[in-house]
């Protein structure tokens, strides 16, 4: 460990040089992980707004199909008389998902929270590679620019689904969005991939190399474990996605035909010599995108574990089982991708194999849920805003986890595949789960980031409304799915089978609109607290982990002392100790029995 200390001192001097730089080098092209984290946070929140608007467009069409959208309809769809056109609808579903996944969830977890928290929680002065870190943020901008441009090119943005299945995506004449829009989408994703890869290398190195003296791997907070496993997943899965993206670019621009079979006539035009297989894309895409599901939740699980222990004033129940389960998820996560392809025409025997591995990956999630329940059992719960969001993560993740079992069961999947059942499932995991965890994380770490507290009553109102309306929006989707209601259909009601589901959809849309408006409480609260919130002090929540020992907000180089860890981060209500928390940096009292890691 002594080498680590020496190493970080050397860093200190290196950073000292640009600590008093110009505005540009301090706030724009900053090498400081905290500034980069906050840049990621604000950019992704802007995209969250865009993605949310796209979602409301989808909801509008499903509730009042082919009717004029109030207020904005006339501006957006002047040609169609203020109503959404079918091609615009396919673009909405594609871009809503692409924006939310690639511009919001992945970068807000790894980019914003990962960047901000990793060095602080491991007691380092910055990331291992600060320049690479800055680049990982700036490589998002070409992606942002390409996606924005794609809305304005001929044919509009990509409309082949966020999964971008060939041949619809690979053949330009197959859909309006498959003209230039699809090419821009592919290049955009390539940039997102480069950004994630740079982040991932940095996170792994920082967590392995730059931990404070005494901070062993098994003394790391769960947030760091979540970020670490996520970085590992990114590093192994991204190359495959990148290869697939380049192959589709080549199919479109050079005519390689990796994913296009021979002799197709699409829209009256030949699709080239072909010779490829559409299923190849699906295998490559899901080889990345299934692990990506965990990339989109493991960090949130970690954050939630930290929030739960802090406000239950109790140690985390089953620390090591928690670590083993996320590692198990990471391992199994690479052999379950075929569960997205049960209906794809893949060999059904292979489907059975993927079914078994998928059933098994539900196990670590179950273990985690039981341990969270064990954590709040017997505590002294403080119902703060971050705690409410963390509790709702647990409450909602149970729903998202259980609904997954239906789709893992291959025969049941025959009926519910590509219906609203799957839409319900992943929104319970990603919105009711991850997004609620992220909101909790914002309320929890905002005082550290900006040195001021957020308003509690407004925060609680934000939680209450979001919680009610999100369930009103997403819970009925299970029932729609049971009715066979297909996803991505601009007008399902001209099928006799789905006619009667209109009223339920209208209820859901009203809830979705209310949920959208509720988010202004978060934005307003952040904006107000940024300037007028009460000063936070170093450790407003009386927590144990290292980031709370640094000043709020931490200065350049983070700590004004050398942090040393004497125990794990979860020693709340340690028997015989005089306060109900026991920071990692506090040396043991003479004669005090120290906690063993079970």
């Amino acid at each position, binding site marked *: 460990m002594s080498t680590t200390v020496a190493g970080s001192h050397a860093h200190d001097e290196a950073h000292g040089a640009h600590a008093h730089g110009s505005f540009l080098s301090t706030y724009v092209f900053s090498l400081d992980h905290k500034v980069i984290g906050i840049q990621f946070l604000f950019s992704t929140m802007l995209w969250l707004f865009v993605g949310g608007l796209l979602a409301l467009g989808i909801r509008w069409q499903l509730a009042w199909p082919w009717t004029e959208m109030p207020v904005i309809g006339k501006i957006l769809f002047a040609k169609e008389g203020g109503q959404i056109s079918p091609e615009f609808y*396919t673009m909405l579903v594609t871009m809503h998902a692409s924006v939310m996944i690639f511009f919001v969830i992945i970068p807000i977890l790894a980019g914003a929270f990962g960047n901000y928290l990793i060095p602080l929680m491991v007691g380092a002065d910055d990331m291992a590679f600060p320049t690479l870190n800055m680049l990982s943020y700036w490589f998002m901008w070409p992606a942002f620019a390409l996606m924005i441009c794609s809305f304005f090119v001929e044919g509009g943005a990509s409309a*082949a689904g966020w999964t971008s299945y060939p*041949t*619809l995506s690979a053949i330009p004449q*197959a859909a309006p969005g498959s003209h230039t829009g699809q090419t821009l989408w592919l290049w955009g994703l390539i940039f997102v991939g480069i950004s994630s890869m740079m982040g991932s290398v940095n996170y792994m190195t920082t967590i392995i190399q730059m931990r404070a003296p005494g901070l062993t791997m098994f003394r790391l907070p769960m947030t760091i474990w979540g970020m670490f496993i996520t970085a590992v997943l990114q590093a192994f899965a991204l190359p495959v996605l990148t290869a697939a993206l380049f192959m589709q670019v080549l199919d479109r621009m050079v005519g390689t035909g990796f994913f296009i*079979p*021979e002799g*197709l*006539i699409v*829209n009256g035009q030949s699709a080239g010599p072909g010779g490829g*297989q*559409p299923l190849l894309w699906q295998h490559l895409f899901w080889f990345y995108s299934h692990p990506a599901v965990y990339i989109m939740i493991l960090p949130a699980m970690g954050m939630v574990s930290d929030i739960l222990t802090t406000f239950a*004033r*109790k140690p*985390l129940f*089953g620390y090591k*089982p928690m670590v083993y389960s996320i590692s198990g998820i990471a391992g199994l996560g690479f052999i379950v991708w075929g569960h997205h392809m049960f209906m794809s025409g893949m060999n*059904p*025997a292979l489907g059975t194999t993927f*079914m*078994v591995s998928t*059933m098994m990956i*539900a196990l670590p999630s*179950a273990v985690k*849920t039981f341990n969270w329940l*064990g954590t709040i059992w*017997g505590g*002294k*719960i403080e*119902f703060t805003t971050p705690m409410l969001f963390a*509790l709702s993560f647990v*409450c909602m993740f*149970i*729903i998202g986890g*259980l609904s997954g*079992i*239906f789709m893992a*069961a*291959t*025969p*049941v999947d025959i*009926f519910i*595949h*590509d*219906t609203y059942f799957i839409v319900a499932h992943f929104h319970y995991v990603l919105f009711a789960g991850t997004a609620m965890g992220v909101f909790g994380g914002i309320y929890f770490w905002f005082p550290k980031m900006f040195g001021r507290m957020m308003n509690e009553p407004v925060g609680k109102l934000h939680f209450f409304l979001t919680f009610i309306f999100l369930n009103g929006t997403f819970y*009925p989707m*299970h*029932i729609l799915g*049971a*009715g*066979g209601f*297909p996803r*991505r259909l*601009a007008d*399902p009601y001209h099928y006799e*089978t789905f006619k009667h589901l209109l009223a339920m959809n209208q209820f859901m849309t009203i809830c979705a609109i209310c949920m959208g408006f509720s988010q202004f409480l978060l934005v307003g609260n952040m904006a107000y607290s940024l300037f007028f919130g009460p000063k936070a002090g170093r450790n407003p929540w009386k927590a144990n982990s290292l980031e709370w020992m640094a000043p709020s907000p931490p200065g350049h180089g983070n700590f004004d002392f050398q942090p040393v860890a004497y125990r794990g981060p979860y020693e*709340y209500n340690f*028997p015989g100790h005089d306060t*109900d928390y026991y920071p990692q940096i506090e040396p043991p009292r003479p004669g005090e029995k120290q906690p063993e890691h*079970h």
Partner: protein
Amino acid sequence: MGKFWSFLFLLVPVLGVGLFVWAPFNHHWLPRDVSAHGYQIDHLFNFILGLTGVVFIVTEMLLFWFLWRYDGKTNKSPVKFTHGSHNLEIVWTILPAATLLFIAIYQMNAWADVKMHKPDMLPTVEVTARQFEWRLRYPGKDGKLGTEDDLFHVNELHVPVDEMTLVKLDSADVLHDFFLPHMRIKQDAVPGTSIPVWFKPVQSGEYDLVCAELCGWGHYKMKGRLFVESRSDYERFLAELEKKQTATNVEKKAEAEE
């Protein structure tokens, strides 16, 4: 406030279970099953629903109870200082593992029935999906596809009741999906690959044929109909199709000769 928040979390299992009890009695449920194999799928759906329902209720009630009981404002007993329990970890690893393994094995036959045990017969009909319609081709008198007496039709799929239908599923352009909700059948149509699909309808009637894979701007209107009818009606349909087709062929020939 702790009690208020506990009750908010209690609403989740109460309303959550409530909706699932309300839905089946108010036509918001799986569409009527009219296939020979569908009962297996529905049974499995209900079985998993029961199982997950129990887990849902138990875990959500525990969550509610812990929030209610251990509210820091009212909980006077000292915090239970513990880092976990070896025995509990073993119990809640083994129990779900066994249950999941059971579900995994329990479903294998149903899957094999629908997707693996292909009936030993010639295809009843060839379905070729294309933007944005279902092209149908019946084998005609000789029972073989790809011969001169093949019969063509669009979007209206007629099949005989109580007999196995074997579909040869193709796509001409992009991915589509052959979804018969009442028949509990779903299969992607993949360009460049013919995929066999089989089912045995057990009730006559008219049902929806849905495209369930995004296939372009007109995906929503790629609607077909499935007509399940008696053997004699089915044969009458084929005969009429043949009559119409010969008539148009004769016309075309005449036109060509002129």
